[in-house]
């Protein structure tokens, strides 16, 4: 009997110690931010001594931020050597916890959470630290909303938007246009003629003022991406298999990313109608835009539109020529160099 107990304790200790905190110049800190019924984990990883904190705003809403840390590490590992990377899990998503009424979640809650996160980080690491925001996809919308709120820009040194969707209706228009243009070019080149004709027809018929039309363009975008796969870099990291393996040893639940976060219809309506292009002129901090050439969901043309509209002269844009919606996965080195160059210039 005694041996059985000892065996159980030994197994428990082995599994409990499966991940160690990193030491040396690399700091690995973890804490939670509680705000408005949500418990959101914050992982601060990397070079805290640099005093440069890069806050990762993940996509979705509903994605898992640790994907950036553990499955996109070709992109983030070197960033951690240079700066403190802040992997903040947004509310009602991935490894966040809490008890939130789905009918009460609003976009403004996310901005409020981010404002509180900045206060907490300054409390933990001192008032001297500098912030850069780096938002991907929905994270691009969140970052833009945050920067347009009050005097929030005062606290941020620079804004990095990766395939950011700060204007849903406009992104869909650009998406439709890109699908049709690309499809017609491919038909002219004699590539997958039947499939492209079908996609182009569906895209042309799609009425963007209706939900069905929006879904049609969305699906056509995915189909277009699949047909152009030979023009893109294919990578094996960050796959579903990787995600499942990671869930055995990393601090997130397998199902939290598979099952979409249930939000109310009002929330999705607010999200889908979010249109911030006209307000971009109010953003005056240095900004970097990274978009994928073969991103049919948030196209490169949408990125150029943001670059043209933003109200700062300290702006840069890089189109990743062999990427879709996740250039950090497909062209990590180019993305990393662009981000490091940008931060080092404006820190």
């Amino acid at each position, binding site marked *: 009997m005694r041996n059985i107990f000892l065996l159980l304790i030994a197994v428990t200790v082995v599994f409990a110690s499966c991940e160690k905190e990193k030491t040396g110049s690399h700091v690995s800190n973890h804490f939670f931010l509680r705000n408005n019924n949500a418990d959101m*984990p914050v992982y601060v990883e990397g070079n805290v001594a640099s005093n440069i904190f890069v806050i990762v705003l993940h996509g979705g809403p509903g994605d898992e931020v640790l994907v950036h840390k553990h499955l996109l590490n070709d992109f983030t590992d070197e960033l951690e050597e240079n700066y403190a990377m802040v992997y903040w899990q947004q509310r009602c998503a991935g490894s966040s916890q809490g008890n939130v009424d789905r009918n009460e979640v609003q976009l403004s809650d996310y901005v409020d959470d981010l404002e509180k996160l900045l206060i907490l980080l300054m409390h933990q690491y001192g008032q001297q630290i500098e912030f850069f925001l780096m938002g991907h996809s929905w994270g691009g919308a969140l970052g833009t909303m945050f920067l347009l709120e009050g005097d929030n820009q005062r606290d941020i040194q620079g804004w990095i938007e990766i395939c950011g969707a700060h204007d849903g209706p406009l992104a869909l228009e650009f998406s439709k246009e890109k699908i049709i243009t690309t499809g017609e070019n491919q038909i002219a080149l004699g590539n997958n003629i039947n499939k492209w004709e079908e996609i182009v027809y569906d895209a042309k018929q799609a009425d963007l003022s209706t939900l069905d039309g929006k879904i049609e363009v969305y699906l056509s975008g995915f189909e277009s991406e699949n047909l152009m796969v030979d023009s893109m870099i294919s990578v094996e990291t960050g796959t579903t298999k990787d995600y499942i393996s990671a869930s055995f040893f990393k601090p997130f639940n397998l199902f939290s990313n598979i099952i979409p976060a249930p939000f109310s219809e009002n929330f999705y309506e607010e999200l889908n109608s979010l249109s911030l292009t006209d307000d971009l002129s109010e953003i005056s901090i240095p900004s970097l835009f990274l978009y994928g050439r073969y991103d049919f969901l948030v196209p490169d043309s949408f990125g150029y539109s943001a670059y043209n509209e933003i109200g700062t002269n300290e702006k840069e844009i890089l189109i990743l020529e062999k990427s879709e919606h996740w250039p950090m996965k497909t062209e990590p080195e180019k993305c990393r160099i662009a981000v490091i160059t940008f931060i080092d210039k404006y820190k």
Partner: protein
Amino acid sequence: MKVIIFILLVSFSSACFAQKEINSASLKISYFGEMITHPGLKCGIEYSLLTRNISKETKRKTKEKKCEIIIGSNLGAYTHFKYNTGVFLNGEIGYRTTRSTGNIFDFMFGAGYLRTFLNSETFEIGENAEVNKVFLAGNNSFMPSVSFGFGRDISQKSEVFDSWYLKPIIFLQTQHNSGILPHLALEAGLNFQLNK
């Protein structure tokens, strides 16, 4: 809150019932791995509500099996590194067969209360931007579960233990965030009769 109180009462009542009928009761202790690798321990008491021995004649021999309706209650805990530590109390009811070969199969339905504690310091920002630490931050959830067990009767070989078992479990955590979070778990444990 009413649901939680109800679950606690049901769990305790089955434990009390088992104590009363101690001859049919057994204790169990197990490794409880949430997602297999997030370790924990679970212990519980089980009581056989209804037992029926069935024998079936075949050409060569007589096959016998014991069929039981089981109720039980469990107390357990697991920890998921940098995520949370869960402590739960649940009640279960299910069906178990023990074949003459010694193989045991069961399926159980459970309902319980799960209290999670966040596995790190938790902070809240006050109205005047002051940072406050939250003591024992965590959440309360309802925890329904279903499990399918396989085991082996070792009562003939062991003086202490009655059987060992392996049991994959699916349990739900509700409410979690703005919905329900399913969990997978694996339980590996030993059963022993109280009166042995």
